[in-house]
C-alpha cells in the first residue's frame, strides 16, 4: 500500500496554494434522511483532491453539492456553507447556471449527447456564448479535444456521433466537453469506474495534466487511483469526513483507525 510511486509526491513545486473551494459544516439531507454530517473540507487550487470511502459514505453527495447538482433531486436539502473564492454558492444571489459553468462536472457513466463529436464539445461554449465566430469555436473545440488527449483518435471524424466512440473515448469526450466551457473547478464522479484498465490509465494521466489549469476534485472507489492522481485525499465514512490530508500522509500514516481499516481493506 505504501509503496505506490505517486505522481502526487513527485511534483508540487508550489509550497502552498490557496483554497479554491471550502466546504464548511456541510450537511445534506434527502428528505428526513441525513446523508452528510458537518463536513469541513478545503479544496486547494490547481491540485487534485480525491474523495474516498466505501459505497454510500457520502463522497458523491459531497461532490454533487459542490456545483449544486443536488438541486435536481427532489427533497434534497443542503445546510452549512460551500464557498467558491470566498462566496457561498448556496447564497440566494448565486446563479446556479453560472456556478455550474465555473464548476464543471464529469460523470461516472460517460454520457455524450447523441450528437456529433464536434457538437458535443461545442455545446458548452455555444450556450455560454464563449465563441465570437465559427473560427473561435473551432479553435475551442480542437484545443479542448487535444487537451483531453482525444485528438489523434477523432480528428478525422468530428462529425460522427459521439455515442459511437468506445467507453474510454466517450469519457475523454465528456472531459473535453467539460473543459471546453473553461471551468475553474472540475468535479469528477468516479470517471473511470466504467472503463477498462488501459482507458483508465490514459484518463489518469490526463487528470494530472489538467491540474495545470484546473482545480480538480475526484471521487474514486480505487485507493490506488487516489494515490496515483491526487495530492490531497479525504476519507468519508457513513456521511462523515473522517480524515483529510496530503495523499502521501493518508496512505502511509493514517491517524484514524477507520481510515487505516479502510485502506488496508478491512472495511469497504
Amino acid at each position, binding site marked *: 500500500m505504501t509503496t505506490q510511486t505517486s505522481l502526487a509526491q513527485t511534483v508540487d513545486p508550489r509550497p502552498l496554494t490557496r483554497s479554491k473551494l471550502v466546504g464548511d459544516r456541510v450537511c445534506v439531507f434527502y428528505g428526513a434522511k441525513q446523508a452528510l454530517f458537518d463536513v469541513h473540507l478545503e479544496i486547494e487550487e490547481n491540485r487534485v483532491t480525491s474523495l474516498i470511502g466505501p459505497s454510500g459514505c457520502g463522497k458523491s453527495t459531497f461532490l454533487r453539492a459542490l*456545483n449544486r*447538482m443536488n438541486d*435536481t433531486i427532489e427533497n434534497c436539502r443542503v445546510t452549512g456553507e460551500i464557498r467558491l473564492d470566498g462566496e457561498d454558492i448556496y447564497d440566494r444571489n448565486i446563479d446556479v*447556471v*453560472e*456556478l*455550474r*459553468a*465555473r464548476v*464543471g*462536472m*464529469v*460523470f461516472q*457513466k460517460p*454520457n*455524450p*449527447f*447523441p*450528437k456529433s463529436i464536434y457538437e458535443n464539445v461545442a*455545446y*458548452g461554449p*455555444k*450556450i*455560454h456564448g464563449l465563441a465570437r465566430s465559427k473560427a473561435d469555436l473551432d479553435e475551442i473545440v480542437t484545443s479542448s479535444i487535444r487537451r483531453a488527449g482525444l485528438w489523434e483518435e477523432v480528428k478525422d471524424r468530428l462529425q460522427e456521433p459521439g455515442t459511437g466512440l468506445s467507453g474510454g473515448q466517450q469519457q475523454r469526450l*465528456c472531459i473535453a*466537453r*467539460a473543459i471546453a*466551457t473553461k471551468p475553474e473547478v472540475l*468535479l469528477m464522479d468516479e470517471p473511470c469506474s466504467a472503463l477498462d484498465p488501459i482507458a483508465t490509465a490514459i484518463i489518469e494521466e490526463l487528470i494530472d495534466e489538467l491540474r495545470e489549469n484546473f482545480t480538480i476534485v475526484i471521487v474514486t472507489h480505487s485507493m490506488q487511483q487516489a494515490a496515483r492522481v491526487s495530492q490531497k485525499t479525504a476519507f468519508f465514512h457513513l456521511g462523515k469526513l473522517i480524515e483529510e490530508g496530503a495523499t502521501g500522509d493518508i496512505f502511509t500514516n493514517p491517524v484514524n483507525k477507520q481510515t487505516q481499516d479502510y485502506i488496508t481493506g478491512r472495511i469497504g
Partner: protein
Amino acid sequence: MTLGLIALLAFAAAAAILFVVGMQRANALAGAQISSLHSTPVYHGSFLAIVSLFPAFLLGLVWAAVSEPLADFVVVRGLGTDFDALAEPDRNTLLRFARAVAAGTADATSEIQQRAADLFQRIDQISTWGIAAILAVLILGGLVFGWRAIAPAYRARHVVERTVMALLIAASAVAIVTTLGIVLSLIFESIRFFEKVPFFQFLFGTHWSPQSAFEGAGAETSARNGEVFGAIPVFTGTLLITAIAIFVAAPIGLMSAIYLSEYATPRVRSIAKPLLEVLAGIPTVVYGFFAALTVAPLFRQFGSNIGLDVSSESALAAGLIMGVMIIPFVSSLSDDVINAVPQSLRDGSAGLGATKSETIQKVIIPAALPGIVSALMLAISRAIGETMIVVMAAGLAANLTANPLDAVTTVTVQIVTLLVGDQEFDSAKTLAAFALGLVLFCVTLVLNIVALQVIRKYREQYD
C-alpha cells in the same frame, strides 16, 4: 339470431349436465380412494363435456357460416342457364326473394322464383335432417367414448388442458383473421371497383363527383366513370385538414408534454395529466358537434366581420377541432419518449451550466427526435382516419384547393356518404368507398408500422 341464442343455451345446458355426469362417474370409480384418480373429478367432468360437445359445436359453427352460400350455390346450379341469363343485380334479388318465398313470408311472382324457392325448400329439408343426424352421431359417439375412457388412471386433465390451449391459440389467431378479413374484403371490393374505373384514373384524376357516375358495363361507362372518380381532390382535402390538425396539435401537444415532464410540479402534473386524458376520452362525435355547431359558425361570423369569405364547412374549423382532439395523443406519446431520455443526459447538460430550456432544446429534443417524429406520424395516421369530426364539420363537395377557408372533403367523409343509406352494393359508387378504404388502410398501415418500428428502436437505444 334468437335461434342461435337458443342453440347456445341448449349447448351450455348440455355441457353442464355432461360435466356433472362425468364428475359423478369419476367419483364412483374412485370410490373412497379419491387419491387414486390421476385427475380430479372436475377434469373428468370437463373431459366428458368436451369430447361429447366440442366436435359438434365446431361443426355447428362451420355449418352456420357455410350453409347459406352452399344453398345459394346448389340453387344456382339447379336453375342452370336460366339463372346465367339474368343480370348481376337481378340474380341477387332473385335469390333473396326466393328465400323469402321458401320461408313462406312472400309469394312467388314468376316461374323461376317458384323454382328457386322449391329448390331452397328441398335443400333446407335435406340439410336440416342431415346436419341433425350428423350432430347426433357426433354427440353420442363422443359420449360413449368419453364414458368408457373415464377411469382412475385416465389423464383427463391433459385432454382438458390441450383443449384449453387450443382455444387460447385460436383466440390469439382472431387478430390475424381480423386483419385478413379487412385486407381481403377491401381488396376484393376494390378489384370490383377497378373493373369499372381504371386504377390510375382513380388515383390521379382530379375530378370527383360520384353522384354523376354511370351504371352498366362497357368501355364507354368505364371511361365516363374514370372522369368522375378522380380521387385527387379527396386526397388533397384530407391532407389539408390533417395538416391543419397537426399544425394545431404538434406545438401544443409537444410543449404541454415538455412542460409536464420537465417543469411541472408533481401537483400540477397530477391535475393536468388527467385533464388531458379527459380530452382524449371525449367521443369524436362530440368534437364533431362542437366543430359543426359552435366553431364553424363562429369562424364564418368572424370572417364576414373582417371581410373574408369563410365557408360554413371550412377546412379550418374541422382541422382545428381535429387538432384539439389529437393534442392529448401527441402529448402523451411525446411525454413517454421524453421520459425515456436518460437522466444522465440532463445531468450532463446541467453540469455544463446549461439552463433548463437549453437542455431541453439542445439535448433532450434532439435525443428524443426519433420518438417525437414517430409520435407525430401516429398522430397523422390518427387524423387521416378520423371520421366523425369531418363528417359533421367538413364538406361533401370535392374542391381541389389549398385554401383553409374553403370547404373540402376527405376520404372518410366520402366513405360515409357513399355507403350510408345506400343498400345497393354493386354500383361503382358504393364500391368506390372500398377503394378509398383500401387507400386509407394502406396509408395508415404504413405510417403505423414505420412509427412503431422507429419507437421500438428508439426505446431499445436507451434501455
